[in-house]
């Protein structure tokens, strides 16, 4: 058995053991399983919120985009800095409301704000729709990492199955505690790996970072800036904006807000998280170096791993693969947790009015393996690249943004029907833009260049906002703005 396989197996068992150990000494009731009894301190919240940065998207997607597209990959650094700034003002009111109402999931927030279980059902569906591509992204990355680092000894599909098994077991057993424990270790390991590769590979390729960029500029003129057509400045600006708007609307990120013990943690983290984002530069550097070391790879997502395999000994590749494995399993577990909670509480829950909180908690845990299985099928079916899967998910979650912002106003003027109308138009438009093919892409026919290259997720969001405003205006003209929000109808906590 080669060294890389042994190291990967050790990481796999380590993750499983740590995840299971996280539950020791605690009763895993609903509040403990989903929001860690709302008692996480600054470090755990930092790592949960920063989890967005260090996923397989960082490891493979960012370097893959630097390898394949060059300048457009800079957007990956840009959006986080803006999103963390937005979080300074956005997260404290969300946290306060969630704590007062004892909310567990993102959907609970919308149900409470708009006093509508039906709207909650819709929000849960949008969230689940968005999280599936993201979960598939983690699984796809996991498969690639293990297959490449073991030189094909462990195939991609087997790796996806084993990785999914590990995260299914520990999410079922320990919930958010397992994710938080492993998130801290994952970030430290991944940080060290990405910084090492970002420094080593440019030196190996061209003798340093400056010479690397000059080599690329000489052989690929224009590659280090944005092209005039396609991934141009319009695409860049609209994609950064879309990612900022959707950043905290991922149900698993939204849920981790509830786990904080103090609202000031978000403000302090907003100061330091943009600096943490800078580490992504090293992932891009590794991708650029791979372009010089191994040009012409058909799958861009493999750039970092292929360059590492080409230049480093087997044991080191095993360590890198182990870090990559963590980068998939930790965010994957948060996603699984969020999907299971939303599905049990907000999709199945309204159909089971006699079930108390703890029975719904058991249902959520029982759903985890089925959701994991469905994500594997999605990953096999979608066949899209890592960054494209992420952008699709961002497009969907961003459709919840207008309803969220309106709900945080002192007097929310937006009625439920306007949220339904705007959100439905946004989701349908994005689905058609993304999967409808050329006949649907009307914006490319009517908008002049370079505007036609606007991110379709932002276009769907704009349609959402227009419809939401029109319906709100129409309802207010008719003199009916819907009933004011009432407290969530709570379920009994004891059977």
């Amino acid at each position: 058995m080669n060294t890389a396989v042994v190291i990967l197996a050790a990481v796999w068992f380590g993750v499983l053991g740590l995840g299971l150990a996280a539950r020791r000494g605690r009763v895993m009731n609903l509040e403990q399983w989903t929001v860690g009894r709302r008692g996480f301190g600054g470090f755990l919240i930092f790592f949960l919120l920063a989890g967005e940065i260090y996923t397989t998207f960082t490891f493979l997607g960012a370097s893959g985009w630097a390898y394949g597209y060059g300048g457009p990959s800079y957007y990956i650094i840009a959006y986080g800095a803006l999103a963390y700034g937005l979080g300074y003002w956005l997260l404290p009111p969300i946290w306060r409301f969630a704590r007062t109402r004892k909310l567990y999931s993102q959907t609970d927030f919308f149900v409470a704000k708009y006093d509508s279980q039906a709207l909650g059902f819709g929000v849960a569906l949008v969230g689940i729709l968005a999280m599936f591509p993201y979960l598939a992204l983690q699984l796809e990355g996991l498969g690639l990492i293990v297959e490449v680092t073991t030189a094909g000894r462990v195939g991609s599909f087997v790796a996806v199955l084993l990785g999914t098994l590990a995260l299914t077991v520990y999410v079922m057993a320990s919930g958010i505690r397992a994710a938080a424990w492993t998130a801290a270790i994952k970030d430290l390991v991944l940080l060290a790996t990405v910084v090492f590769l970002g420094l080593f590979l440019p030196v190996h390729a061209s003798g340093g970072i400056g010479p690397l960029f000059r080599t690329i500029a000489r052989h690929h003129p224009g590659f280090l800036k944005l092209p005039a057509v396609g991934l141009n400045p319009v695409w860049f600006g609209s994609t950064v904006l879309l990612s900022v708007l959707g950043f905290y609307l991922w149900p698993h990120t939204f849920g981790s807000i509830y786990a904080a013990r103090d609202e000031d943690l978000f403000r302090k983290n907003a100061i330091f998280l943009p600096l943490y984002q800078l580490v992504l530069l090293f992932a891009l550097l590794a991708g650029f170096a791979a372009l010089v070391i191994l040009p012409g790879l058909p799958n861009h997502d493999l750039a970092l791993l292929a360059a590492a395999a080409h230049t480093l000994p087997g044991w080191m590749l095993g360590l890198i693969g182990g870090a990559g494995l963590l980068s998939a399993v930790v965010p994957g577990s948060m996603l699984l947790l969020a999907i299971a909670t939303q599905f049990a509480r907000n999709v199945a829950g309204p159909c089971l009015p006699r079930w108390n909180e703890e029975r719904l908690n058991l249902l959520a845990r029982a759903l985890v393996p089925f959701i994991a299985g469905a994500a594997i099928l999605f990953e096999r079916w979608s066949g899209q690249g890592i960054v494209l899967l992420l952008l699709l998910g961002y497009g969907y979650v961003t459709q919840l943004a207008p309803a969220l912002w309106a709900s945080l106003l002192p007097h929310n003027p937006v009625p439920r029907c306007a949220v339904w109308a705007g959100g439905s138009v946004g989701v349908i438009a994005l689905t058609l833009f993304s999967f409808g093919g050329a006949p649907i892409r009307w914006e490319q026919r009517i908008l002049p260049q370079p505007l036609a290259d606007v991110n379709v997720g932002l276009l769907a969001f704009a349609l959402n906002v227009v419809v939401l405003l029109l319906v709100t205006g129409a309802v207010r003209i008719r003199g009916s703005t819907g009933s004011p929000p009432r407290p969530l109808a709570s379920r009994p906590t004891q059977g």
Partner: protein
Amino acid sequence: MALLVGPFFLNQVHPWVLDLPFLLFWVLLWTTLASGFMGLVYWIERGGSTPR
């Protein structure tokens, strides 16, 4: 705005700054400054006192 609109006007490789293409340097510069701005906002909101 610097990160959203800047690339429309500064989409160029030259001049190289810190051995980086100019557009990449621009993005990194404002990402770093974002952290400083948030620190400043926090300090001002706390009335200029030392953060808790």
